[in-house]
């Protein structure tokens, strides 16, 4: 069997497992599994978007959670206003918010793109460690901004009155919502894989390997990197919208550097620069978290050292390891 076939079989098995999860967990009477796997799927989307810039563009953003937070708050705020009856803004026209998922997604993507363009224009002038730090700083800025927005709950966060409406789907039903998220994740994977294989993707990777060379070849690397940064932010915002819908609650913690760090961990753990790795990383990280926390409330004391070991010994992540197995087999 060729290694390419094995890869597809592996992916198909994973997909079938994910599809079969709801009926199986219901039979086993463990329906909390559906809810926690929905969370995993959503984080996988965020991790994919981060992998685009970290794994393919070489831009280590330590503030990616900010865009997840922006997406989540967009959903919560729009829903808050439609329930509250107060207009979100009155100029240039009155707008009361919305509860329709597609509209929420559009707004969230727009907001994320705008913020990413503005912050990216400054951040991308810097490189390496400065880039890490400035993305962190921008995320912190948003974190404090949302803490101070008392109208939207400030530090306590903002609950959502029920999920957004999705055409043809009962979004309130956890199983339907799970399948919807699975669908979006598959869409994410397809889009991301196309993107990294496209002309744009090749330029992005070139910028990662040797930006100076790319410039002397004639690429305006700044603009290409900025575009990638904005695309990644839009992806994270979509994940944020779904996350808010899943928990029906948002709080400034979504912008925290802790979450940004966790997203990076997922990407690295799974194996960066492969898209599939980001998905695997999200699954494994969140599962580890659950398993450890089942044993002890102090699960982070285990997770911390595991991370360190992964960084020191498993440099290409889980997907890299699987690929190696596949090639050797």
């Amino acid at each position, binding site marked *: 069997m060729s290694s390419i076939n094995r890869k597809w079989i592996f992916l198909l098995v994973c997909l079938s497992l994910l599809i079969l999860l709801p009926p199986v967990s219901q039979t086993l009477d463990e329906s909390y599994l559906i809810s926690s796997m929905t969370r995993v799927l959503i984080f996988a989307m965020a991790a994919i978007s981060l992998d685009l810039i970290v794994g393919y563009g070489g831009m280590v953003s330590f503030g990616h959670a900010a865009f997840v937070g922006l997406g989540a708050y967009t959903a919560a705020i729009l829903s808050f206003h439609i329930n509250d009856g107060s207009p979100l803004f009155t100029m240039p026209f009155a707008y009361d918010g919305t509860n329709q998922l597609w509209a929420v997604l559009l707004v969230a993507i727009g907001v994320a793109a705008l913020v990413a363009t503005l912050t990216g224009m400054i951040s991308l002038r810097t490189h390496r460690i400065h880039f890490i730090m400035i993305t962190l700083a921008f995320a912190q800025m948003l974190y404090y901004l949302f803490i101070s927005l008392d109208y939207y709950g400030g530090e306590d966060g903002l609950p959502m009155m029920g999920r957004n409406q999705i055409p043809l789907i009962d979004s309130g039903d956890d199983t339907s919502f799970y399948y919807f998220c699975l669908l979006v994740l598959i869409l994410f994977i397809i889009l991301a894989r*196309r993107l990294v294989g496209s*002309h744009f993707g090749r330029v992005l990777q070139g910028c990662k*390997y040797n930006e100076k060379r790319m410039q002397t070849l004639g690429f305006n690397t700044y603009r290409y990197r900025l575009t990638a940064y904005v695309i990644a932010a839009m992806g994270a915002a979509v994940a944020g919208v779904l996350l808010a819908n899943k928990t029906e609650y948002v709080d400034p913690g979504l912008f925290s550097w802790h979450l940004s760090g966790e997203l990076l961990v997922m990407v690295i753990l799974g194996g960066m620069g492969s898209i599939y790795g980001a998905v695997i990383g999200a699954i494994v990280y969140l599962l580890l978290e659950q398993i450890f926390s089942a044993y002890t409330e102090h699960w982070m004391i285990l997770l911390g050292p595991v991370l360190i070991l992964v960084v020191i010994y498993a440099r290409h992540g889980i997907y890299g390891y699987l690929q190696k197995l596949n090639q050797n087999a």
Partner: protein
Amino acid sequence: MPDILLSTENLCKSYAGLRANHNLNLQLLRGEIHALIGPNGAGKSTAVAQLSGELASDSGRIIFEGRDITRMAVHARARAGVSRSFQVTSVFDEMSVLDNLALAIQAHHGHSYRFWRAAKKDRFLNTQANTLADQFGLEQAHDLLAGTLAHGEKRQLEVAMTLAGNPSLLLLDEPMAGIGPGGSKKLTELLDALRGRYTVLLVEHDMDAVFALADRISVLVYGEIIATGSVDEIRRDKKVQQAYLGEVC
């Protein structure tokens, strides 16, 4: 009236007070292979980086095809037709030979804000990349990762990449660096085949290659050009013999 492709007027560059290039006046005629030689630390690489735009010049002007490009960004110069190779091989080790070349061609072929179709299936890029690879003796290596090539082949790829997109000016920074006599003879032949079709500024230490290839030579010593002329003129030049060639010939 000779046809001047590029000229510099009193181009200067210093690092932290240290003079790298002083009042550089260089004229490249269209179609010539112009060698820039000089002892180590004479400012040759600095000059190339100034022309390509990687280093901003402190003063002076660069005129290319009648346009002042002194303040033009690196990528814009490349798209305008100034293409360079690096002394330290700068191919993309993680990509195949063809992908390296395709990427270089892509830079000159419209924009790359194309997000959906697979770049690897782009017929136009692939054909061009194939041609370029074959032209530079890499016909056996199309699908090898550039990082796995032998050093000489890497140098060939390095130069081949600068030819993508039909530039009008090639800035070759020590293309023969570290490849030994055999490789250097092969690369000399490959470069000789370009004569007349491109204007080449050749920075090189390998004097056999310089004498075999150059139409004209400029000698750079401590940031200043002390002589420009044909191979014979340079060989006969007393100042050059004193400053530089005396040790070699």
